[in-house]
């Protein structure tokens, strides 16, 4: 009896400790982070496979078919191969810059995943400056490119790194101006609020209809930021061998490879969040009045539907990006910079001014 009473007293005392709750809260943050990282990894595997299959379809050949059913484990096979390749550091290359360059590219992209809402309110951290975090962190990527180019001690790599950095920073301004126009419309920088502002009229509430020029500028700018064709110059095989990636081998090259697809995925996710009302069921209000409530409730089933819808919309832009890559020819560096500075920048600035005036006159 005495033992029972003291045990019960101990348990009561333990549960009343404040610090226990804080430790529990911190542990509870790890679970979403690990799920997000796992989700991102699986998505990258899926995108690599998608790219191979879609390019095979466009070129009328069969894509990967040996690794796993329909070749779905192709990316895993590639990654494992790269893991066992020799990890060279070029002679007289700067070891620290050379090693950290690819990691910086990957890290800056991975952090941006924390502000994307995959379902209603299903976001790792609902910052009030959500979209601005992405813009700010994606400005770190050119530093990684410059570090890789300079640290390789190779003239071609250096030139490739300079060109890649020039391209990246040139297209950041139109990108940011488009995002600014969207935040003007939704009166908030938080991604959850931007998605909410598009949830009212179903399909017709998308920001795509309110910002058509911004949408097109955003599409072009994000292809240029991700260094996908037609803006592929940093890794143009005929001109610069592999640009800033020339001297890389093994898992560091794998990091660049993964960073490219991560960048593509996050840009496509942002297109859905900013322009397509990602995770809202976009069927107009007239036809399905009971679905209208689903946009704003919690619950496991609703969240899964939200995630599915976001991924379906993202897949559309992934498909468009991959098809564009295998269809259009490459731009020259001066055409590229001219497009960024002399065409997209004035258009996105004009779009911003138009949006401002429409907001002013409707007040």
């Amino acid at each position: 009896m005495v033992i029972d009473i003291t045990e019960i007293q101990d348990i009561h005392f333990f549960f009343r400790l404040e610090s226990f709750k804080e430790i529990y809260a911190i542990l509870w943050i790890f679970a979403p982070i690990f799920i997000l990282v796992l989700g991102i990894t699986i998505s990258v595997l899926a995108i690599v496979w998608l790219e191979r299959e879609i390019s095979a379809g466009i070129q009328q050949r069969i894509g990967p078919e040996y690794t796993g059913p329909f070749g779905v484990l192709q990316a895993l096979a590639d990654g494992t191969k790269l893991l066992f390749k020799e990890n060279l550091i070029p002679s007289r290359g700067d070891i620290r810059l050379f090693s950290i360059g690819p990691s910086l590219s990957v890290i800056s992209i991975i952090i941006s995943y924390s502000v994307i809402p995959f379902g209603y309110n299903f976001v790792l951290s609902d910052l009030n400056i959500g979209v601005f975090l992405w813009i700010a962190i994606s400005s770190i990527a050119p530093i990684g490119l410059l570090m890789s180019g300079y640290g390789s001690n190779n003239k071609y790599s250096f030139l490739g790194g300079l060109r890649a950095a020039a391209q990246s920073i040139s297209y950041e301004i139109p990108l940011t101006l488009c995002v600014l126009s969207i935040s003007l419309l939704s009166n908030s920088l938080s991604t959850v609020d931007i998605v909410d502002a598009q949830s009212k009229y179903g399909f017709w509430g998308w920001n795509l209809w309110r910002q058509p020029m911004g949408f097109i500028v955003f599409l072009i700018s994000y292809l240029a930021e991700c260094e996908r064709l037609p803006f592929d110059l940093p890794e143009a095989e005929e001109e610069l061998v592999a640009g800033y990636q020339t001297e890389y081998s093994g898992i560091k090259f794998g990091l660049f490879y993964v960073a490219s697809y991560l960048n593509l995925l996050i840009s496509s996710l942002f297109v859905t969040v900013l322009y397509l009302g990602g995770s809202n069921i976009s069927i107009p209000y007239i036809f399905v009045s009971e679905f209208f409530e689903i946009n704003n409730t919690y619950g496991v089933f609703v969240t899964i539907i939200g995630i599915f819808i976001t991924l379906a919309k993202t897949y559309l832009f992934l498909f468009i990006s991959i098809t564009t890559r295998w269809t259009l020819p490459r731009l020259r560096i001066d055409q590229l910079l001219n497009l960024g500075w002399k065409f997209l920048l004035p258009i996105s600035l004009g779009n911003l001014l138009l949006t401002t005036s429409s907001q002013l006159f409707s007040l």
Partner: protein
Amino acid sequence: MRLLPGFFLFFRYAAPPARSERTKWFVVMSEFAPICLYLVISLLVSLILLGLPFPFASNSSTYPEKLSAYECGFDPFGDARSRFDIRFYLVSILFIIPDPEVTFSFPWAVPPNKIDPFGSWSMMAFLLILTIGSLYEWKRGASDRE
């Protein structure tokens, strides 16, 4: 199964209005704590990936030709740390001007009705000054012929 709805609820922490210093700090921490942890975890992920080849490495398989710079099969000609075109530097400087312009536009664009037309028009004056600068740069050909 009862825990699952709670699990999905955790993802968004509904922040109460900040009334005291402690609640303000709590709100900020609850928004940024996941990102700080996420930053540490992503750092770990990429650094562990970098460190993975070390058990499989061997010192004896490198020789000078393998480690030298790649120049399409020839021996590297001259030093790689040579001069580069000034236009890359110019592009960076010309980026620095519109970048804070856009950053300063963010606080202007977001508040819904709190700035009257006076606020909008004063921002227009700022953008006008920078646009005049951009036009000058265009006409002088600073971003030409790379």
